[in-house]
């Protein structure tokens, strides 16, 4: 709670949090949507925004506002799920590699470095092209999660390497604490802030990746996401037909989401930076 209060003192963080709150309201609203988001022709087509259809309707006969609620929900769901999966792998790899060292460490770090260097986007496209029919929210999240852990695993590993030499490690080992307990109970709390700081920028990466894959037609376009709504609008030439509300809705929503995630991640890493913390303490 104190952390949150201190973060809210940072103006940028409050702005980011406020935008995220608005998007969260959209997500909640999606559960009260009147129509099935995948059904076509549930509303008159190409209507301008009005009280009845807040953001107008599109050429598929869907209400853009309700589509957007689902799009934000699904995009955030993919991002969160992928983040959870990749974080879980990152923690395990980082802790194991850092604590055990030797051959295990070298092997894991080799895979880690390979993931950092190789053109992941092209490999994802290669995979997505063959499984495009089965690209659900879950499989997309798993795909992003499996490739996105390398950077954090490296950070966690270096943290563990220094923790391993600390006094309390020796005390714990001498008093007979089992290794798994030492690693997960004693080391994990040190690693947690690191994870949170990178979590948000990773989520932004996933949202952007989803949009890119949807734009080149490699996701299941029946499921509304930020990317697929934009893709439909562009495929139907919404820009030339002057259906601006249809194009602008996903663009504004995704820019808002990116800005919010970015501001929050910047202010959190600012908060965690010890140098900045000293300045904050002095200022008070």
């Amino acid at each position, binding site marked *: 709670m104190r952390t949150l209060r201190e973060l809210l003192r940072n103006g940028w963080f409050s702005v980011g949090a406020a935008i995220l709150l608005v998007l969260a309201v959209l997500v909640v609203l999606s559960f009260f949507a009147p129509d099935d988001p995948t059904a076509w022709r549930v509303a008159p087509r190409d209507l301008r925004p009005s009280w009845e259809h807040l953001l107008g309707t599109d050429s598929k006969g869907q209400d853009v506002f309700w589509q957007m609620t689902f799009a934000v929900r699904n995009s955030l769901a993919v991002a969160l799920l992928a983040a959870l999966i990749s974080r879980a792998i990152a923690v395990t790899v980082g802790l194991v590699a850092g604590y055990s060292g030797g051959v295990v460490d070298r092997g894991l770090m080799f895979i880690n470095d390979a993931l950092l260097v190789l053109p992941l986007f092209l490999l994802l496209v290669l995979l997505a092209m*063959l499984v495009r029919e089965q690209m659900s929210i879950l499989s997309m999240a798993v795909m992003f999660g499996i490739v996105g852990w390398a950077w954090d695993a490296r950070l966690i590993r270096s943290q563990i390497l220094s923790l391993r030499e600390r006094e309390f490690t020796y005390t714990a080992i001498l008093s007979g604490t089992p290794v798994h307990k030492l690693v997960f109970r004693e080391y994990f709390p040190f690693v947690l802030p690191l994870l949170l700081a990178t979590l948000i920028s990773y989520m932004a990466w996933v949202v952007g990746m989803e949009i890119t894959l949807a734009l*080149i037609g490699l996701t299941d376009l029946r499921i509304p996401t930020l990317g697929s709504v934009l893709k439909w609008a562009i495929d139907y030439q919404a820009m030339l037909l002057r259906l601006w509300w249809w194009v602008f809705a996903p663009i504004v929503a995704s*820019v808002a989401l990116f800005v919010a995630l970015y501001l929050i991640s910047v202010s959190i890493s600012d908060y965690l930076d010890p140098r900045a913390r000293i300045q904050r303490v002095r200022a008070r």
Partner: protein
Amino acid sequence: MRFIRRYLVPRLLQYVLVTVLGITVVFAIPRLLPGDPVENMVATLQARSANLDPAAVEKMIHTLREMYGLDQGLFQQYLTFWKRLFAGDFGPSLFVFPTPVIQLIGQSLPWTAALLLVTTLLGWTIGNILGGLTGYFPDARVLKILDGAVMLIRPIPYYVFALTLLILFAYLLPVFPLGGGYTVGTKITLTWSSVRDVLRHAFLPALSLTVLLVASTFQTMRLIIRGVTEEDYVRYAKIGAVKEGTIFTKYGMRNAILPQITGLALSLGGIFGGALITEMVFGYPGLGFLLYRAIVNVDYNLLMGITTISIGAITTSILVVDLLYPLFDPRIRFR
């Protein structure tokens, strides 16, 4: 000699292993999925474009079967795969059958290389200088405004940024062409009007790439130099009344640029993957656009060719920078 044994050999070994791992993944992906890869490929291809000539499809299946060698064992397939790779043979393209993939890549590569080489070097240099200045003089009014502007530009998705430029400068204010690499119907020659035509077409894609690269380089550089200015040697130089300009260039920038060089290597290696989104939006005839056409037309061979070349380019450029690193950082010496 110790340098070779302790550093060069392990580093080269790592380079070879990472490259082989990446290319093995490319080999494995179509084979890992259930079903016959050739059948799968042709089935998706037919589902996409209904009016394929049956004779051509027959021929395609035959060539693919021969290429994949599916009746042989997995290990034999793997060996053949590598043998073809070293011969530069990625098989025929599927959507402009039977043009070899390598020929299509060869046609697109110069476009992308010229565009991305210029924008990467330009964006990296401008971003570092501006970011360095802003980090070193955090109180200057102009630089504060710049910092705010970058904060706003940075989170904009690539696609949206490129599309906005296109709408503004080609659609609403028709200063630049709507897309393509040169005026359709003309031949590229070395005359002034032809060169100007190519440059005019390249301007908007180049602008969008440069601005976004400047923004990201700017921010990392600003953070790095803020750390450097708090080092003791900078403080000492200030007390010793070393000129401000000298401190900034020789003490600040000289040290802060080092981590940025690795980033440059990654971007330069990434050139061989093309700039997918930019080239797609502007219809620029480079590798990214070729990649996009490969994806839309389910041309698996072409996609595999681009990916393989891109893997080789990235690992090699990082290796080169790693080996050249002592030139930039005198503290590191290979002994």
